[in-house]
Protein backbone atom coordinates (compact mmCIF):
# COMPACT_ATOMS: atom_id res chain seq x y z
CA UNK A 1 0.00 0.00 0.00
CA UNK A 2 1.17 3.53 -0.69
CA UNK A 3 1.84 5.88 2.15
CA UNK A 4 -1.24 7.95 2.72
CA UNK A 5 -3.84 8.94 5.26
CA UNK A 6 -4.48 7.00 8.47
CA UNK A 7 -8.25 6.99 7.83
CA UNK A 8 -7.60 5.02 4.64
CA UNK A 9 -6.39 2.07 6.73
CA UNK A 10 -9.82 1.92 8.38
CA UNK A 11 -11.70 2.36 5.12
CA UNK A 12 -9.72 -0.34 3.32
CA UNK A 13 -10.16 -2.82 6.18
CA UNK A 14 -13.89 -2.02 6.35
CA UNK A 15 -14.23 -3.09 2.71
CA UNK A 16 -12.31 -6.32 3.33
CA UNK A 17 -13.62 -7.25 6.78
CA UNK A 18 -16.83 -5.30 7.52
CA UNK A 19 -18.00 -7.72 10.21
CA UNK A 20 -14.71 -8.48 11.92
CA UNK A 21 -14.10 -6.88 15.31
CA UNK A 22 -11.89 -3.81 15.09
CA UNK A 23 -11.75 -2.53 18.67
CA UNK A 24 -12.61 -4.16 21.98
CA UNK A 25 -12.99 -1.88 25.00
CA UNK A 26 -11.72 -2.52 28.52
CA UNK A 27 -14.83 -4.44 29.67
CA UNK A 28 -15.34 -6.31 26.41
CA UNK A 29 -17.57 -3.94 24.44
CA UNK A 30 -16.62 -4.32 20.78
CA UNK A 31 -17.00 -2.42 17.52
CA UNK A 32 -16.81 -4.06 14.10
CA UNK A 33 -14.96 -2.41 11.25
CA UNK A 34 -18.20 -1.24 9.62
CA UNK A 35 -19.47 0.20 12.94
CA UNK A 36 -16.21 2.02 13.63
CA UNK A 37 -16.16 3.37 10.10
CA UNK A 38 -19.82 4.47 10.17
CA UNK A 39 -19.57 6.14 13.59
CA UNK A 40 -16.38 8.00 12.71
CA UNK A 41 -17.95 9.12 9.40
CA UNK A 42 -20.90 10.51 11.35
CA UNK A 43 -18.58 12.35 13.74
CA UNK A 44 -16.57 13.80 10.85
CA UNK A 45 -19.78 15.06 9.23
CA UNK A 46 -20.87 16.59 12.54
CA UNK A 47 -17.55 18.43 12.84
CA UNK A 48 -17.55 19.62 9.24
CA UNK A 49 -21.10 20.99 9.61
CA UNK A 50 -19.91 22.99 12.61
CA UNK A 51 -17.00 24.52 10.81
CA UNK A 52 -14.12 22.37 12.01
CA UNK A 53 -11.56 22.69 9.24
CA UNK A 54 -8.47 21.09 7.86
CA UNK A 55 -5.61 21.80 10.27
CA UNK A 56 -7.81 22.47 13.31
CA UNK A 57 -6.98 20.68 16.55
CA UNK A 58 -9.52 18.72 18.59
CA UNK A 59 -8.72 17.73 22.18
CA UNK A 60 -9.66 14.29 23.49
CA UNK A 61 -9.69 13.88 27.27
CA UNK A 62 -11.22 10.45 27.78
CA UNK A 63 -10.34 7.30 29.65
CA UNK A 64 -9.30 4.37 27.41
CA UNK A 65 -12.51 3.49 25.56
CA UNK A 66 -13.90 2.56 22.13
CA UNK A 67 -15.27 6.13 22.07
CA UNK A 68 -11.71 7.48 21.99
CA UNK A 69 -10.94 5.41 18.89
CA UNK A 70 -14.16 6.59 17.18
CA UNK A 71 -13.11 10.13 18.14
CA UNK A 72 -9.61 9.85 16.63
CA UNK A 73 -10.87 8.57 13.28
CA UNK A 74 -13.76 11.07 13.21
CA UNK A 75 -11.41 13.96 13.89
CA UNK A 76 -8.91 12.84 11.24
CA UNK A 77 -11.67 12.24 8.67
CA UNK A 78 -12.81 15.83 9.21
CA UNK A 79 -9.28 16.89 8.26
CA UNK A 80 -8.38 17.92 11.81
CA UNK A 81 -5.67 16.65 14.16
CA UNK A 82 -6.43 14.96 17.48
CA UNK A 83 -4.70 15.97 20.69
CA UNK A 84 -4.98 13.15 23.24
CA UNK A 85 -4.55 14.38 26.80
CA UNK A 86 -3.95 12.21 29.87
CA UNK A 87 -7.33 12.01 31.61
CA UNK A 88 -5.56 11.15 34.89
CA UNK A 89 -3.18 14.15 34.85
CA UNK A 90 -3.91 17.26 36.93
CA UNK A 91 -6.53 19.49 35.25
CA UNK A 92 -4.13 22.44 35.34
CA UNK A 93 -1.62 20.66 33.09
CA UNK A 94 -4.36 19.55 30.68
CA UNK A 95 -5.67 23.13 30.45
CA UNK A 96 -2.21 24.41 29.55
CA UNK A 97 -1.88 21.79 26.80
CA UNK A 98 -5.31 22.48 25.30
CA UNK A 99 -4.68 26.24 25.43
CA UNK A 100 -1.19 25.89 23.93
CA UNK A 101 -2.36 24.28 20.69
CA UNK A 102 -5.63 26.23 20.65
CA UNK A 103 -8.04 23.30 20.27
CA UNK A 104 -11.30 24.30 18.60
CA UNK A 105 -13.34 21.41 19.95
CA UNK A 106 -13.08 19.05 22.89
CA UNK A 107 -14.33 15.52 23.45
CA UNK A 108 -14.49 14.55 27.10
CA UNK A 109 -16.75 12.99 29.68
CA UNK A 110 -19.21 14.43 32.15
CA UNK A 111 -17.60 16.23 35.05
CA UNK A 112 -14.38 17.05 33.19
CA UNK A 113 -15.17 20.56 31.95
CA UNK A 114 -12.43 21.67 34.37
CA UNK A 115 -9.91 20.97 31.59
CA UNK A 116 -11.33 23.74 29.35
CA UNK A 117 -8.93 26.69 29.19
CA UNK A 118 -10.59 29.88 30.48
CA UNK A 119 -9.82 32.18 27.57
CA UNK A 120 -10.04 29.64 24.86
CA UNK A 121 -10.68 28.93 21.24
CA UNK A 122 -13.11 26.09 22.01
CA UNK A 123 -16.43 26.43 20.22
CA UNK A 124 -17.74 22.90 20.66
CA UNK A 125 -17.74 20.34 23.47
CA UNK A 126 -18.86 16.73 23.05
CA UNK A 127 -19.61 14.70 26.15
CA UNK A 128 -19.65 10.92 26.33
CA UNK A 129 -22.27 9.28 28.56
CA UNK A 130 -25.98 9.76 28.96
CA UNK A 131 -26.52 13.46 29.51
CA UNK A 132 -25.10 16.87 28.70
CA UNK A 133 -26.28 18.13 32.06
CA UNK A 134 -23.36 20.47 32.64
CA UNK A 135 -23.08 24.16 33.28
CA UNK A 136 -22.56 25.74 29.89
CA UNK A 137 -19.71 28.09 29.20
CA UNK A 138 -19.88 31.24 27.19
CA UNK A 139 -19.25 30.80 23.50
CA UNK A 140 -19.33 27.04 23.13
CA UNK A 141 -21.93 24.55 22.07
CA UNK A 142 -22.34 21.35 24.06
CA UNK A 143 -23.59 18.09 22.54
CA UNK A 144 -23.72 14.39 23.25
CA UNK A 145 -20.95 12.36 21.66
CA UNK A 146 -23.43 9.51 21.23
CA UNK A 147 -25.78 11.59 19.04
CA UNK A 148 -22.90 13.13 17.10
CA UNK A 149 -21.67 9.67 16.11
CA UNK A 150 -25.06 8.09 15.38
CA UNK A 151 -25.71 8.98 11.75
CA UNK A 152 -24.47 11.40 9.19
CA UNK A 153 -23.66 11.46 5.53
CA UNK A 154 -19.96 10.92 4.98
CA UNK A 155 -18.42 14.06 3.55
CA UNK A 156 -15.45 13.61 1.34
CA UNK A 157 -12.84 16.09 2.41
CA UNK A 158 -9.69 16.63 0.45
CA UNK A 159 -6.98 14.58 2.11
CA UNK A 160 -3.35 15.40 2.20
CA UNK A 161 -0.71 13.15 3.68
CA UNK A 162 1.08 16.28 4.89
CA UNK A 163 -1.88 17.20 7.13
CA UNK A 164 -1.33 16.94 10.86
CA UNK A 165 -2.82 13.69 12.20
CA UNK A 166 -2.16 14.22 15.91
CA UNK A 167 -0.13 16.22 18.39
CA UNK A 168 1.43 14.34 21.31
CA UNK A 169 2.55 16.40 24.30
CA UNK A 170 5.74 15.47 26.05
CA UNK A 171 7.61 16.91 29.01
CA UNK A 172 9.39 20.19 28.23
CA UNK A 173 12.66 21.31 29.81
CA UNK A 174 11.37 24.83 30.45
CA UNK A 175 8.51 23.42 32.50
CA UNK A 176 5.83 23.66 29.82
CA UNK A 177 4.83 20.45 28.02
CA UNK A 178 5.63 20.69 24.31
CA UNK A 179 3.48 19.43 21.43
CA UNK A 180 5.11 17.06 18.93
CA UNK A 181 3.36 17.56 15.56
CA UNK A 182 3.01 14.44 13.42
CA UNK A 183 1.44 14.14 9.98
CA UNK A 184 -0.35 11.25 8.34
CA UNK A 185 2.78 10.62 6.32
CA UNK A 186 4.90 10.50 9.49
CA UNK A 187 2.61 7.92 11.08
CA UNK A 188 1.89 5.81 8.02
CA UNK A 189 5.53 5.54 6.97
CA UNK A 190 6.16 3.99 10.39
CA UNK A 191 3.11 1.70 10.15
CA UNK A 192 4.20 0.52 6.67
CA UNK A 193 7.60 -0.39 8.09
CA UNK A 194 5.94 -2.31 10.94
CA UNK A 195 3.99 -4.37 8.38
CA UNK A 196 7.16 -5.51 6.67
CA UNK A 197 8.82 -6.62 9.92
CA UNK A 198 5.96 -7.98 12.07
CA UNK A 199 3.72 -9.48 9.32
CA UNK A 200 0.38 -8.95 11.03
CA UNK A 201 -2.85 -10.51 9.73
CA UNK A 202 -6.56 -10.14 10.40
CA UNK A 203 -6.22 -12.98 12.90
CA UNK A 204 -3.96 -10.98 15.20
CA UNK A 205 -5.21 -9.56 18.47
CA UNK A 206 -3.17 -6.53 19.56
CA UNK A 207 -2.80 -5.20 23.07
CA UNK A 208 -3.27 -1.49 23.61
CA UNK A 209 -1.56 -0.96 26.92
CA UNK A 210 -0.02 2.49 26.44
CA UNK A 211 -2.32 5.47 26.99
CA UNK A 212 -3.23 7.32 23.81
CA UNK A 213 -1.08 10.36 24.68
CA UNK A 214 1.94 8.03 24.59
CA UNK A 215 3.31 7.23 21.12
CA UNK A 216 3.39 3.46 21.66
CA UNK A 217 -0.36 3.67 21.01
CA UNK A 218 0.26 4.53 17.35
CA UNK A 219 1.53 1.03 16.58
CA UNK A 220 -1.25 -0.65 18.58
CA UNK A 221 -4.08 1.23 16.90
CA UNK A 222 -3.05 1.76 13.31
CA UNK A 223 -1.09 -1.43 12.65
CA UNK A 224 -4.06 -3.45 13.93
CA UNK A 225 -6.58 -1.44 11.90
CA UNK A 226 -4.45 -1.57 8.75
CA UNK A 227 -4.47 -5.36 8.80
CA UNK A 228 -8.08 -5.94 9.83
CA UNK A 229 -6.93 -7.27 13.22
CA UNK A 230 -8.54 -6.40 16.55
CA UNK A 231 -7.04 -4.06 19.14
CA UNK A 232 -7.85 -4.63 22.82
CA UNK A 233 -7.91 -1.49 24.95
CA UNK A 234 -6.51 -1.81 28.45
CA UNK A 235 -7.87 0.69 30.97
CA UNK A 236 -5.50 2.75 33.12
CA UNK A 237 -6.61 0.80 36.18
CA UNK A 238 -6.10 -2.64 34.63
CA UNK A 239 -2.82 -1.47 33.10
CA UNK A 240 -1.35 -0.92 36.55
CA UNK A 241 -2.52 -4.25 37.88
CA UNK A 242 -0.17 -7.05 36.79
CA UNK A 243 -2.26 -9.91 38.17
CA UNK A 244 -5.38 -8.93 36.26
CA UNK A 245 -3.33 -7.95 33.26
CA UNK A 246 -1.88 -11.46 32.92
CA UNK A 247 -5.38 -12.90 33.08
CA UNK A 248 -6.54 -10.35 30.49
CA UNK A 249 -3.80 -11.38 28.03
CA UNK A 250 -4.89 -14.99 28.39
CA UNK A 251 -8.63 -14.39 28.23
CA UNK A 252 -8.40 -12.11 25.21
CA UNK A 253 -5.94 -14.56 23.58
CA UNK A 254 -3.69 -11.64 22.62
CA UNK A 255 -1.11 -12.38 19.94
CA UNK A 256 0.88 -9.11 19.95
CA UNK A 257 1.99 -7.32 23.13
CA UNK A 258 3.61 -3.88 23.14
CA UNK A 259 4.56 -1.95 26.26
CA UNK A 260 7.43 -0.49 28.22
CA UNK A 261 9.90 -2.86 29.91
CA UNK A 262 8.60 -1.58 33.29
CA UNK A 263 5.21 -3.15 32.64
CA UNK A 264 6.72 -6.42 31.42
CA UNK A 265 8.87 -6.55 34.56
CA UNK A 266 5.79 -6.00 36.71
CA UNK A 267 3.99 -8.80 34.85
CA UNK A 268 6.95 -11.07 35.48
CA UNK A 269 7.23 -10.22 39.17
CA UNK A 270 3.59 -9.90 40.20
CA UNK A 271 1.54 -11.36 37.34
CA UNK A 272 1.84 -15.05 38.22
CA UNK A 273 2.39 -15.72 34.50
CA UNK A 274 2.69 -19.56 34.66
CA UNK A 275 -0.90 -19.83 35.93
CA UNK A 276 -2.31 -18.28 32.73
CA UNK A 277 -2.54 -19.62 29.21
CA UNK A 278 -0.54 -17.08 27.21
CA UNK A 279 0.19 -19.47 24.36
CA UNK A 280 -1.34 -17.19 21.73
CA UNK A 281 1.35 -14.54 22.17
CA UNK A 282 3.60 -14.54 19.12
CA UNK A 283 5.27 -11.14 19.47
CA UNK A 284 6.46 -9.17 22.49
CA UNK A 285 7.57 -5.66 21.60
CA UNK A 286 9.05 -3.24 24.08
CA UNK A 287 10.20 0.37 23.90
CA UNK A 288 10.57 3.52 25.92
CA UNK A 289 13.50 2.62 28.16
CA UNK A 290 16.33 0.16 28.66
CA UNK A 291 15.20 -3.38 29.60
CA UNK A 292 17.57 -4.75 32.27
CA UNK A 293 18.86 -8.05 30.83
CA UNK A 294 18.23 -9.96 34.03
CA UNK A 295 14.48 -9.28 33.86
CA UNK A 296 14.32 -9.79 30.10
CA UNK A 297 16.04 -13.18 30.46
CA UNK A 298 13.64 -14.23 33.24
CA UNK A 299 10.67 -13.16 31.13
CA UNK A 300 11.93 -15.08 28.14
CA UNK A 301 12.38 -18.16 30.29
CA UNK A 302 8.83 -17.81 31.54
CA UNK A 303 7.42 -17.10 28.03
CA UNK A 304 9.80 -18.72 25.57
CA UNK A 305 7.53 -18.95 22.51
CA UNK A 306 7.11 -15.31 21.38
CA UNK A 307 9.67 -13.37 19.36
CA UNK A 308 11.01 -10.34 21.27
CA UNK A 309 11.93 -7.00 19.74
CA UNK A 310 13.54 -3.95 21.30
CA UNK A 311 12.14 -0.86 19.55
CA UNK A 312 13.81 2.51 19.98
CA UNK A 313 12.70 5.99 19.03
CA UNK A 314 11.59 9.27 20.57
CA UNK A 315 8.02 10.54 19.98
CA UNK A 316 9.55 12.91 17.38
CA UNK A 317 10.48 10.02 15.05
CA UNK A 318 8.47 7.11 16.45
CA UNK A 319 10.46 3.86 16.20
CA UNK A 320 13.65 4.52 14.22
CA UNK A 321 15.98 1.66 15.23
CA UNK A 322 15.12 -1.90 16.23
CA UNK A 323 16.77 -5.09 17.41
CA UNK A 324 15.49 -8.64 17.52
CA UNK A 325 16.38 -10.31 20.81
CA UNK A 326 18.07 -13.73 20.39
CA UNK A 327 15.90 -16.75 21.16
CA UNK A 328 17.94 -17.70 24.17
CA UNK A 329 19.64 -14.92 26.09
CA UNK A 330 22.98 -16.26 27.35
CA UNK A 331 23.29 -16.68 31.11
CA UNK A 332 26.50 -14.68 31.09
CA UNK A 333 25.14 -11.56 29.38
CA UNK A 334 24.58 -8.55 31.62
CA UNK A 335 24.93 -5.76 29.06
CA UNK A 336 21.55 -4.48 27.89
CA UNK A 337 20.72 -5.33 24.27
CA UNK A 338 21.51 -2.69 21.66
CA UNK A 339 18.79 -0.54 20.13
CA UNK A 340 19.98 -1.94 16.80
CA UNK A 341 20.39 -0.53 13.31
CA UNK A 342 18.10 2.08 11.72
CA UNK A 343 14.71 0.90 10.42
CA UNK A 344 14.46 0.79 6.65
CA UNK A 345 12.44 3.99 6.39
CA UNK A 346 14.94 5.95 8.51
CA UNK A 347 18.50 7.17 8.12
CA UNK A 348 20.77 7.50 11.12
CA UNK A 349 23.83 9.66 11.67
CA UNK A 350 26.10 9.82 14.71
CA UNK A 351 28.03 13.03 15.24
CA UNK A 352 30.61 14.08 17.81
CA UNK A 353 30.75 17.44 19.62
CA UNK A 354 32.31 19.09 16.59
CA UNK A 355 29.70 17.75 14.19
CA UNK A 356 32.02 15.14 12.69
CA UNK A 357 30.74 11.69 11.80
CA UNK A 358 31.76 9.13 14.39
CA UNK A 359 33.46 5.98 13.06
CA UNK A 360 32.44 2.47 14.17
CA UNK A 361 33.20 1.94 17.85
CA UNK A 362 32.92 5.64 18.71
CA UNK A 363 30.28 7.53 20.66
CA UNK A 364 28.17 10.50 19.69
CA UNK A 365 24.72 12.05 19.37
CA UNK A 366 22.19 10.14 17.28
CA UNK A 367 20.45 12.07 14.46
CA UNK A 368 17.52 10.65 12.47
CA UNK A 369 16.03 11.66 9.13
CA UNK A 370 13.25 10.16 7.04
CA UNK A 371 9.51 10.32 6.39
CA UNK A 372 8.56 9.51 10.01
CA UNK A 373 10.40 12.51 11.48
CA UNK A 374 7.98 15.05 13.00
CA UNK A 375 7.23 18.53 11.65
CA UNK A 376 8.36 20.40 14.74
CA UNK A 377 7.00 21.41 18.13
CA UNK A 378 3.79 23.36 18.16
CA UNK A 379 4.56 27.06 18.34
CA UNK A 380 8.17 26.66 19.55
CA UNK A 381 10.36 28.37 16.96
CA UNK A 382 13.49 28.47 19.11
CA UNK A 383 13.32 24.80 20.08
CA UNK A 384 12.56 23.84 16.48
CA UNK A 385 15.64 25.66 15.27
CA UNK A 386 17.72 23.76 17.80
CA UNK A 387 16.13 20.37 17.11
CA UNK A 388 17.11 20.03 13.47
CA UNK A 389 20.31 19.97 11.47
CA UNK A 390 20.42 20.33 7.70
CA UNK A 391 23.13 18.14 6.22
CA UNK A 392 23.57 16.38 2.88
CA UNK A 393 20.30 17.95 1.76
CA UNK A 394 18.38 16.17 4.51
CA UNK A 395 16.66 17.38 7.66
CA UNK A 396 18.09 15.53 10.68
CA UNK A 397 16.44 15.42 14.08
CA UNK A 398 18.83 15.51 17.03
CA UNK A 399 17.48 12.84 19.42
CA UNK A 400 19.71 14.06 22.26
CA UNK A 401 20.56 10.40 22.89
CA UNK A 402 24.19 9.36 23.02
CA UNK A 403 24.88 6.08 21.28
CA UNK A 404 27.86 3.95 20.46
CA UNK A 405 28.10 2.48 16.96
CA UNK A 406 28.75 -1.23 17.05
CA UNK A 407 29.80 -2.87 13.82
CA UNK A 408 27.49 -5.88 14.07
CA UNK A 409 24.83 -5.05 16.66
CA UNK A 410 23.92 -1.57 15.48
CA UNK A 411 23.61 1.28 17.98
CA UNK A 412 24.07 0.84 21.70
CA UNK A 413 22.27 3.34 23.90
CA UNK A 414 24.63 5.15 26.29
CA UNK A 415 22.64 7.94 27.91
CA UNK A 416 21.99 11.66 27.62
CA UNK A 417 23.83 14.91 28.17
CA UNK A 418 20.76 16.95 29.10
CA UNK A 419 18.33 16.66 31.99
CA UNK A 420 15.77 14.34 30.42
CA UNK A 421 15.18 10.97 32.06
CA UNK A 422 12.83 8.06 31.46
CA UNK A 423 10.42 6.93 34.14
CA UNK A 424 8.15 3.98 33.43
CA UNK A 425 8.89 4.71 29.77
CA UNK A 426 7.73 8.33 30.02
CA UNK A 427 10.03 11.18 29.18
CA UNK A 428 10.51 13.43 32.15
CA UNK A 429 12.37 16.73 32.04
CA UNK A 430 13.72 17.36 35.53
CA UNK A 431 13.18 21.07 34.82
CA UNK A 432 9.42 20.50 34.62
CA UNK A 433 9.45 19.03 38.14
CA UNK A 434 11.49 21.99 39.42
CA UNK A 435 9.09 24.43 37.87
CA UNK A 436 6.14 22.73 39.59
CA UNK A 437 7.98 22.81 42.93
CA UNK A 438 8.56 26.55 42.53
CA UNK A 439 4.78 27.02 42.61
CA UNK A 440 4.85 26.00 46.26
CA UNK A 441 4.37 29.11 48.44
CA UNK A 442 7.35 28.30 50.71
CA UNK A 443 9.78 27.41 47.94
CA UNK A 444 12.92 29.48 47.78
CA UNK A 445 15.10 27.16 45.71
CA UNK A 446 14.51 23.76 44.16
CA UNK A 447 16.84 21.43 42.27
CA UNK A 448 15.86 17.99 41.04
CA UNK A 449 18.36 15.28 40.16
CA UNK A 450 18.07 11.67 38.99
CA UNK A 451 20.34 9.30 40.86
CA UNK A 452 21.08 5.79 39.53
CA UNK A 453 20.22 2.93 41.87
CA UNK A 454 21.86 -0.46 42.25
CA UNK A 455 18.83 -2.20 40.64
CA UNK A 456 19.35 -0.16 37.42
CA UNK A 457 16.45 2.17 38.22
CA UNK A 458 16.59 5.87 39.09
CA UNK A 459 15.76 7.74 42.26
CA UNK A 460 14.38 11.21 41.56
CA UNK A 461 15.49 13.43 44.41
CA UNK A 462 14.31 16.99 45.04
CA UNK A 463 16.71 19.26 46.94
CA UNK A 464 14.79 22.10 48.49
CA UNK A 465 15.53 25.34 50.26
CA UNK A 466 12.40 26.63 51.98
CA UNK A 467 11.74 30.25 52.90
CA UNK A 468 12.83 30.85 56.47
CA UNK A 469 14.80 27.61 56.40
CA UNK A 470 13.54 24.41 57.94
CA UNK A 471 11.57 21.52 56.59
CA UNK A 472 8.12 20.75 55.29
CA UNK A 473 6.06 17.62 55.61
CA UNK A 474 7.04 15.21 52.85
CA UNK A 475 3.44 14.04 52.65
CA UNK A 476 2.34 17.62 52.00
CA UNK A 477 5.02 18.06 49.33
CA UNK A 478 4.04 14.82 47.58
CA UNK A 479 0.38 15.84 47.65
CA UNK A 480 1.35 19.25 46.27
CA UNK A 481 3.25 17.59 43.42
CA UNK A 482 0.29 15.28 42.71
CA UNK A 483 -1.85 18.39 42.12
CA UNK A 484 0.60 19.82 39.57
CA UNK A 485 2.33 16.87 37.92
CA UNK A 486 1.45 13.45 36.48
CA UNK A 487 2.19 10.66 38.97
CA UNK A 488 5.32 9.49 37.12
CA UNK A 489 6.95 12.89 37.77
CA UNK A 490 6.54 12.98 41.56
CA UNK A 491 9.99 12.84 43.25
CA UNK A 492 10.88 9.79 45.36
CA UNK A 493 12.96 11.69 47.89
CA UNK A 494 12.95 15.19 49.34
CA UNK A 495 16.07 16.64 50.93
CA UNK A 496 15.92 19.96 52.81
CA UNK A 497 18.93 22.22 52.77
CA UNK A 498 19.86 25.68 53.94
CA UNK A 499 21.28 26.49 50.49
CA UNK A 500 22.07 24.80 47.18
CA UNK A 501 25.71 24.36 46.16
CA UNK A 502 26.78 26.52 43.20
CA UNK A 503 29.38 26.06 40.49
CA UNK A 504 32.00 28.73 39.79
CA UNK A 505 29.65 30.21 37.18
CA UNK A 506 26.93 30.44 39.83
CA UNK A 507 24.76 27.65 38.48
CA UNK A 508 23.27 24.93 40.65
CA UNK A 509 25.95 22.29 41.16
CA UNK A 510 23.90 19.19 40.39
CA UNK A 511 26.92 16.90 40.39
CA UNK A 512 27.74 17.90 43.91
CA UNK A 513 24.13 17.41 45.02
CA UNK A 514 24.17 13.89 43.59
CA UNK A 515 27.55 13.17 45.17
CA UNK A 516 26.41 14.37 48.56
CA UNK A 517 23.23 12.33 48.27
CA UNK A 518 25.05 9.10 47.46
CA UNK A 519 27.91 9.68 49.90
CA UNK A 520 26.34 11.36 52.92
CA UNK A 521 29.60 11.26 54.90
CA UNK A 522 31.37 13.63 52.49
CA UNK A 523 28.37 15.93 52.70
CA UNK A 524 28.70 16.32 56.44
CA UNK A 525 32.37 17.11 56.38
CA UNK A 526 32.60 19.14 53.20
CA UNK A 527 29.34 20.95 52.83
CA UNK A 528 27.73 22.88 55.59
CA UNK A 529 24.61 23.19 53.47
CA UNK A 530 22.91 20.02 54.58
CA UNK A 531 21.18 20.29 57.90
CA UNK A 532 18.40 17.77 57.60
CA UNK A 533 19.86 14.82 55.91
CA UNK A 534 17.48 12.07 55.01
CA UNK A 535 18.00 8.77 56.75
Amino acid sequence: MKIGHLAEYLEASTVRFPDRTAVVGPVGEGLTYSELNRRSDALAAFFVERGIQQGDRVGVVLPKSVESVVAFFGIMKAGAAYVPVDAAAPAERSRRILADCKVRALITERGRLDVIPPAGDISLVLLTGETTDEPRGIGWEISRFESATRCGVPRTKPRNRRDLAYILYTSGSTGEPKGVMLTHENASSFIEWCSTVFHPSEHDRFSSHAPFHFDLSILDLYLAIKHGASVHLISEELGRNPRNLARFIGERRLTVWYSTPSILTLLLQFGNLPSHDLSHLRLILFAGEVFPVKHLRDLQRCLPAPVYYNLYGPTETNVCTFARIPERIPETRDMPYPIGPACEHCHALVLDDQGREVPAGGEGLLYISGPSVFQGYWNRPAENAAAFLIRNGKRWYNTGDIVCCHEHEGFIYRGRKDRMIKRRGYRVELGEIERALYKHPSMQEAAVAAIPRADEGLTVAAFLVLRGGGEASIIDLKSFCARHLPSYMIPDRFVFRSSLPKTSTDKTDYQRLVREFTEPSTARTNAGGVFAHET
Partner: protein
Amino acid sequence: MNAVRHTIHRFILAEFLPGEEEHNLRDDTPLLTSGILDSLAALNLANFLQERFHVEFEVHELTAQHFDRIQDIAAVIVRKQSQAVNAKGAAS
Protein backbone atom coordinates in the same frame (compact mmCIF):
# COMPACT_ATOMS: atom_id res chain seq x y z
CA MET B 1 -5.22 -4.44 64.70
CA ASN B 2 -2.85 -1.94 66.29
CA ALA B 3 0.16 -4.09 65.53
CA VAL B 4 -0.93 -4.41 61.91
CA ARG B 5 -1.42 -0.65 61.60
CA HIS B 6 1.96 -0.06 63.19
CA THR B 7 3.69 -2.40 60.72
CA ILE B 8 2.09 -0.70 57.71
CA HIS B 9 2.96 2.70 59.15
CA ARG B 10 6.61 1.79 59.64
CA PHE B 11 6.95 0.25 56.18
CA ILE B 12 5.46 3.24 54.36
CA LEU B 13 7.62 5.71 56.28
CA ALA B 14 10.81 3.75 55.69
CA GLU B 15 10.24 2.88 52.04
CA PHE B 16 8.32 5.78 50.57
CA LEU B 17 8.65 8.74 52.94
CA PRO B 18 12.19 8.71 54.29
CA GLY B 19 12.73 11.85 56.34
CA GLU B 20 9.06 12.38 57.15
CA GLU B 21 8.01 12.97 60.77
CA GLU B 22 6.21 9.91 62.11
CA HIS B 23 3.17 11.80 63.33
CA ASN B 24 2.49 13.33 59.90
CA LEU B 25 1.48 9.92 58.57
CA ARG B 26 -1.86 9.25 60.21
CA ASP B 27 -4.05 6.17 59.97
CA ASP B 28 -6.49 8.16 57.83
CA THR B 29 -3.94 9.93 55.59
CA PRO B 30 -4.89 9.26 51.95
CA LEU B 31 -2.11 7.23 50.34
CA LEU B 32 -3.07 6.62 46.71
CA THR B 33 -5.17 9.68 46.01
CA SER B 34 -2.56 12.03 47.53
CA GLY B 35 0.50 10.95 45.56
CA ILE B 36 2.27 9.29 48.54
CA LEU B 37 2.09 5.88 46.86
CA ASP B 38 2.16 5.44 43.10
CA SER B 39 0.93 2.22 41.53
CA LEU B 40 4.30 0.51 41.80
CA ALA B 41 4.70 1.52 45.44
CA ALA B 42 1.21 0.17 46.18
CA LEU B 43 2.18 -3.18 44.66
CA ASN B 44 5.35 -3.29 46.72
CA LEU B 45 3.39 -2.54 49.87
CA ALA B 46 0.82 -5.22 49.02
CA ASN B 47 3.56 -7.76 48.40
CA PHE B 48 5.27 -6.95 51.69
CA LEU B 49 1.99 -7.26 53.61
CA GLN B 50 1.08 -10.54 51.92
CA GLU B 51 4.35 -12.08 53.02
CA ARG B 52 4.39 -10.53 56.46
CA PHE B 53 0.80 -11.43 57.41
CA HIS B 54 0.31 -14.53 55.24
CA VAL B 55 -2.73 -13.13 53.50
CA GLU B 56 -3.60 -12.79 49.83
CA PHE B 57 -5.08 -9.57 48.44
CA GLU B 58 -7.72 -9.72 45.76
CA VAL B 59 -7.16 -7.36 42.88
CA HIS B 60 -10.15 -5.19 43.72
CA GLU B 61 -8.74 -4.69 47.21
CA LEU B 62 -5.79 -2.72 45.84
CA THR B 63 -8.01 0.13 44.67
CA ALA B 64 -8.56 3.49 46.36
CA GLN B 65 -11.69 2.16 48.06
CA HIS B 66 -9.83 -0.39 50.22
CA PHE B 67 -6.19 0.62 49.98
CA ASP B 68 -6.16 4.39 50.39
CA ARG B 69 -5.70 4.63 54.17
CA ILE B 70 -3.71 2.64 56.70
CA GLN B 71 -6.83 1.94 58.75
CA ASP B 72 -8.62 0.45 55.71
CA ILE B 73 -5.66 -1.73 54.73
CA ALA B 74 -5.32 -2.97 58.31
CA ALA B 75 -9.04 -3.78 58.44
CA VAL B 76 -8.77 -5.90 55.28
CA ILE B 77 -5.78 -7.79 56.72
CA VAL B 78 -7.44 -8.41 60.10
CA ARG B 79 -10.61 -9.65 58.39
CA LYS B 80 -8.61 -12.03 56.21
CA GLN B 81 -6.66 -13.36 59.18
CA SER B 82 -9.80 -14.06 61.18
CA GLN B 83 -11.39 -15.75 58.17
CA ALA B 84 -8.33 -17.97 57.87
CA VAL B 85 -8.50 -18.88 61.59
CA ASN B 86 -12.23 -19.66 61.32
CA ALA B 87 -11.66 -21.81 58.26
CA LYS B 88 -8.95 -23.74 60.11
CA GLY B 89 -11.18 -24.16 63.16
CA ALA B 90 -14.01 -25.46 61.01
CA ALA B 91 -11.72 -27.93 59.27
CA SER B 92 -10.29 -29.52 62.44
